[in-house]
């Protein structure tokens, strides 16, 4: 209130600057409690403690078994691996599987389609990555707290169910005997049921819509939290400057959310090849298989279902290596741009 009273007396631009700067400084001075005693611990107990190490050793063993030991399985990619014979009994074939990936025309065509699907899903995800930002900004404009809370509750719920259940919901709503077809039929709009699921049409779009249905509300939570931590002085001074609601959204809220957004964007670029397989596995069928097989699902399909374990390992290995390289690159870019790393 006192801000609004005194506002006309001040030069507007200066007010904005001053208030913001003041806040920033006061934050700098006492905003950081630091890590009390972090250095205090150093002086005590000069010798290293092996007992402490022994206490965590069992957990380190678990971590080694389930994260590092499987890397040895990459050797499979250089053998003609037969599970019954084990690695020792299988024939060593060198880079055969890797060259097969790029030599046989049918294989190349298939991998090309898989890569197209993978990148399409990733780029569609990146193209819609601003939606949670807008969702949060618009929800923030809603004044009635009960309505905001209700919307937040209902829209985050789908994030906490499994893809199996999402598929079950999709099936009961969109199968040929499902709700949508039966409603359309009752209204006389169709005579033959529409095939929403058993089709090769619009597979990418459908998958995008389901992942938005599941993830949009949850994705907005982080931005809603970020909005509450925006310095109120920025809003006060913008109002003093006479900014309207849309100008405040455009020039204050949106830019303030960008650092968070950029970090997530860079991470999603680094994760370009990792779509996960669960969503695509549950939705896949004989009709949509060509367009739904992303890299993770393809590796599963040829490896476990098709029994080409070595080929699948070779492909998975390439994927892992490229992913780590992408992550390192993304991190380096973020470090150069923002001064801090993202991982």
């Amino acid at each position, binding site marked *: 209130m006192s801000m609004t009273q005194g506002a006309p007396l001040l030069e507007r631009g200066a007010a904005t600057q001053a208030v913001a700067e003041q806040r920033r400084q006061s934050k700098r001075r006492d905003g950081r409690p630091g890590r009390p005693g972090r250095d205090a611990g150093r002086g005590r107990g000069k010798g290293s403690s092996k007992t402490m*190490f022994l206490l965590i050793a069992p*957990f380190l063993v678990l971590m080694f078994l389930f994260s590092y030991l*499987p890397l040895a399985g990459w050797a499979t990619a250089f053998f003609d691996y037969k599970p019954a014979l084990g690695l020792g009994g299988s024939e060593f074939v060198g880079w055969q599987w890797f060259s097969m990936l790029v030599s046989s025309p049918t294989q190349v065509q298939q991998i090309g389609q898989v890569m197209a699907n993978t990148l399409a899903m990733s780029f569609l995800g990146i193209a819609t990555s601003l939606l949670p930002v807008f969702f949060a900004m618009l929800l923030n404009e809603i004044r009635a707290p009960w309505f905001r809370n209700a919307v937040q509750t209902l829209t985050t*719920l789908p994030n906490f169910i499994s893809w199996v259940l999402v598929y079950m919901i999709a099936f009961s709503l969109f199968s040929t005997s499902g709700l949508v077809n039966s409603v359309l039929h009752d209204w006389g709009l169709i005579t033959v049921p529409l095939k929403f699921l058993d089709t090769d049409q619009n597979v990418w779009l459908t998958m995008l819509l389901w992942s938005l249905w599941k993830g949009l509300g949850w994705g907005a939570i982080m931005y809603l*939290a970020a909005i509450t931590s925006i310095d109120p002085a920025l809003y006060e001074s913008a109002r003093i400057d006479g900014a309207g609601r849309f100008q405040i959204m455009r020039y204050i809220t949106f830019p303030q959310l960008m650092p968070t957004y950029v970090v997530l964007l860079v991470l999603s670029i680094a994760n370009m090849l990792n779509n996960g397989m669960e969503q695509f596995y549950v939705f896949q069928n004989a009709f949509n298989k060509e367009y739904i097989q992303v890299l993770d699902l393809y590796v599963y399909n040829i490896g476990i279902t098709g029994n080409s374990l070595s080929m699948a390992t070779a492909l998975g290995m390439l*994927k892992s290596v490229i992913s780590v390289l992408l992550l390192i690159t993304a991190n380096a870019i973020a470090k150069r741009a923002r001064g801090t790393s993202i991982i």
Partner: protein
Amino acid sequence: MPTTSLATRRTRGDIPFGVVNYAGFLLFAILCAYPFYYLIINSVSANDLSALGRVRLWPEGAHLSNYGQILQLNGLSEAAVVSVARTVIGTACTVLASAFLGFMFTQERMWKRSLWYRLTIFTMYFSAGIIPLYITMKSLGLTNSFWVYILPAIVQPFNIILVKTYVESMPRSLQEAAEIDGAGTIRIFFRIILPNMTPILATIAIFTAVAQWNSFQDTLLYITDQKLYSLQYLLYTYTNQASSLAQAAQNAQGNLGSIVSAATSQTPTSIRMTVAVIVVLPIIFIYPLFQRYFVKGIMLGAVKG
């Protein structure tokens, strides 16, 4: 107090904008919530109507016999036990291990502490891939074992970072006082540290429990023994395999003897809906409880190691 403040200044576009904004969110909220409602009303409606997609807005011919009958389906009660067991045991193990490791990694005196910490955190950024993982599980004898649900999930680097950050923000004097009194590391952990970090542990517990309950891929990859199927996996087979489902429906009716009518005899739809509700209800019930931890969980996620 003046009634007009700059904060509520209205521009010409405000009212249409408000209406559209409210309507948009209302629509999306309905889109998110209706499918759950649809499952529930169908699971308690007359089975001949639900099979035709006629139950749309409220239950028709309501009855609860589906829930009794479904439990007699082959494998369903076993799957429920497996899912509950993995959720309870898995969550307990993961939470305790995360708390302990997060605390231990703050102990500067530990031999090669930062090496172990870095090795642990590094596992977040790569994966050997599903085939090498499958081969590893197989050679460890974990395929077709209940422990494949528990053991690989115990060490979670992300949770360890959360706990470590939390412990570092606690006053050091707490620990020092205990050390002066002669308490050992284990004692300090259980007596001093653990009771003081319930908020962060609750957050971890909730997210771990949801992940365990929802997990589907590990059953798909490592389990062929029907006794170890999880509810999620069973739901998947029910949704996708019409033939096995019709068979299941017949069995369910056979088990019940003679008194079956069109409204209560099992159809593929009624089985699917009822199992889906059984799978989703625990999530809906604990949902209000863990909503409090959302923002906490996700903002802590922004803290780096």
